[in-house]
C-alpha cells in the first residue's frame, strides 16, 4: 500500500469556472510525484466521488474560488461514506466564504463538515505538499490500512 503511487483527484467544485489556480496546483502535485486525476472546472460534488471510486484515489482536493464553497461542499464527506470511501483524505482550499470572516472560524466549519484540511487564500503549494506527506505517512503507519 505505501509503495503504491498515491492518487489525488483535483477539481473546482460547483458552478465555479476559476481553473487557473487549480491547474497550477495539479501540475505541482504531479511534479511532487503524485498521480493526479484533474477534473477541472464546473465539477459537481458527486463527480469527485465517482472519479475517486473508479481510480481508487487516496485523496480528493476540492478548490472553490467564488464564495459558494460552503453550500457546494455540504454533505461531501457523507457522499464519500455512501460510496464506500469512508476514510479518504479530503482537502479543500480557495476563497471559501463570502465577506471577511475570521479564518479559524471558517476552518472549523469545514473541518466539522468532514474535511481533513482546509487551506485559506494565499496558502503555498509547498505547504499543501507537506500536509499530504504527513497525512499519508500517518495513514500508512496504521496497523490495518484501508482496502482500495
Amino acid at each position, binding site marked *: 500500500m505505501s509503495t*503504491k503511487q498515491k492518487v489525488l483527484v483535483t477539481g473546482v467544485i460547483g458552478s465555479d469556472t476559476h481553473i487557473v489556480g487549480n491547474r497550477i496546483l495539479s501540475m505541482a502535485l504531479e511534479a511532487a510525484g503524485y498521480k493526479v486525476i484533474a477534473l477541472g472546472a464546473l465539477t459537481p460534488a458527486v463527480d469527485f466521488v465517482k472519479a475517486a471510486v473508479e481510480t481508487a484515489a487516496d485523496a480528493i482536493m476540492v478548490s472553490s474560488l467564488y*464564495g459558494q464553497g460552503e453550500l457546494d461542499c455540504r454533505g461531501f464527506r457523507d457522499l464519500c461514506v455512501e460510496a464506500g470511501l469512508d476514510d479518504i483524505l479530503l482537502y479543500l482550499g480557495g476563497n471559501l466564504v463570502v465577506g471577511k470572516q475570521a479564518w479559524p472560524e471558517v476552518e472549523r466549519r469545514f473541518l466539522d463538515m468532514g474535511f481533513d484540511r482546509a487551506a485559506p487564500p494565499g496558502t503555498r503549494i509547498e505547504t499543501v505538499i507537506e500536509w499530504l506527506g504527513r497525512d499519508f505517512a500517518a495513514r500508512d503507519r496504521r496497523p490495518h490500512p484501508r482496502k482500495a
Partner: protein
Amino acid sequence: MSACALLIDFGSTYTKLRAIDLDARRILGSGQGPSTVTSDIMIGMKAALADLEKRLGTLPRFKYRLASSSAAGGLRMVTVGLVRELTAEAARRAALGAGARLVGTFAYRLTKGDVEQIVALAPDILLLAGGTDGGNSAVILHNAAALGRSALACPVVLAGNRSAADDAVALLGTREVIACENVMPEFNQLNIEAARAAIRKVFIDRIVHAKGIDRAHAEFDEVLMPTPAAVLEGVKLLADGCAGVSGLGPLLVVDPGGATTDVHSVASGEPSVAGVIPQGLPEPRVKRTVEGDLGMRHNAATIVEAVGLERIAADARLAPTRALALLDLIGRNMERLPQSAEEAALDQALVRTSVKLAVARHCGNLETVFTATGPVTVQHGKDLSNVGAVIGTGGALVHSRDARAVMEMALADAAEPLSLRPKQPKLLLDREYLLYACGLLGAVEPQAALELALAHLEPIDTEVPHE
C-alpha cells in the same frame, strides 16, 4: 464474366442475400429465405439461394461469400462495470460498438441476485470491466470471484483495471477468459477498440459455432461479424472513405426496426460553437446506440407510452380509439404488415416517433449553467448539428409511403434548440438494404464496397415512389 460477391445476412426473421458485381459496382440481385437457425440453418439458406437463382437465371461463381448474423437472438451480451457513468458505461459502449444486443448491464459489486440474474440471462459473452489501470481493483476482483463461483457458462471478455487482470483471470476459474486492454485505462478516457476486437473474435471463434450457423459453411467462406457490427463498419467506410475514394464525411444513420431503433454516427461530436464546454465521458467517434423501447412491432406499446396515445393518433390523423384498436392488432401479431390506409398511417406515426426519440437520445444536449461570472454553456454527448448526411435504413423506413417525412424527424427542431441534432444534412435512403453488405464487402474490397454504396444510396429529395 466479372468477379462477383455474395453477401449473406442470417437475420432473426429472414436469411437475406445480396449478389454484387464487383467490377460494375452494381447489385446483380437479391434473394430471401426464412431464418431457420433454430432448426437447420441450411433450409433457409437453400431457399434464399433458390430465390436468388430464380432472379438471376443461374448463380455465378462467387469470389467472396461473406456473412453476418443476427440470428438466434443476435449476439446477446451482459456488461459489468464499476461506476455506472464511468467504466460500466464504457463497457456498454464497447459491447454496442461490437454489434451486441445488450440483455443486461450491471455496475458496482454484483450481488447474489445479480449473479443469479446473469446466469438466467445466459448471455453469449460477458464483458467484465471496472477500475482505471492502477485504480480500484477490489470491485472487479469481487465480481470475478462471484462469476467464477457461478454456473455461468459463456466466455468472459475481461477489460478492466490492468493491475487486477491476472488475479481476475484466476478467480474466473476454468471458463474461457479473453483479457484485453481496459475500456477506461485513465479516468474519463474511453478505449473500446481492444474490447470490441476481442468480442468480435469470440463471436467468430465460438458463437458462430454455438449458434449452429457454421452448419451452412459449405455455402459461405466466413461469418465475419454480427449484423449490427457489419452495418457500423459500412457506415464507417461511407463516412471515412478509403484509399482513392473519399467518403461522405461526418454522418448519422437511423435504422428503425421491429424490436429496436438503432442509431449510428461517425463524427467527432465536439462542440461546433466556440466557448461550449464538453462534460462527461468522452464520446466515441464511431458510436452506436440501441433504443430497446422503440420498435415498430415488438415495442410499439412503449413508443406510444413515450409520447402519449394522443400525439401518435394526431400524427396518424386517426381517432385515439381507432389508433388503440389498430395497436391491439399489432400487439396480437408481430408479423403484421399494414393492410389498410389507416394501418399505414399508424405505422408512419410510429416510425416518425421512433426516429425522433432515438436520434434525440443519440445526439447530445446543451445546458446553460449560471456561474458567478455569468452563464456558461456545457455540452453533454455528441454535437452532431453539422454532420453532412443522414441515412435512413430498415424496412419501416424503406416501405414508408413518405420516407422524407420520417427522415425529417431526425433533424434539428427550432422548438428544441438545446438538442444537437443535424441541421442541414443531405438525406439519403438505403433502399436496397446495402449497409450491412457494404460493411462485409469492405473487409475484402473496400473501394468496391464504398462505390457500390455511394451509387445506390438514394437522395431523398428526388425520390420517385417505387412499386
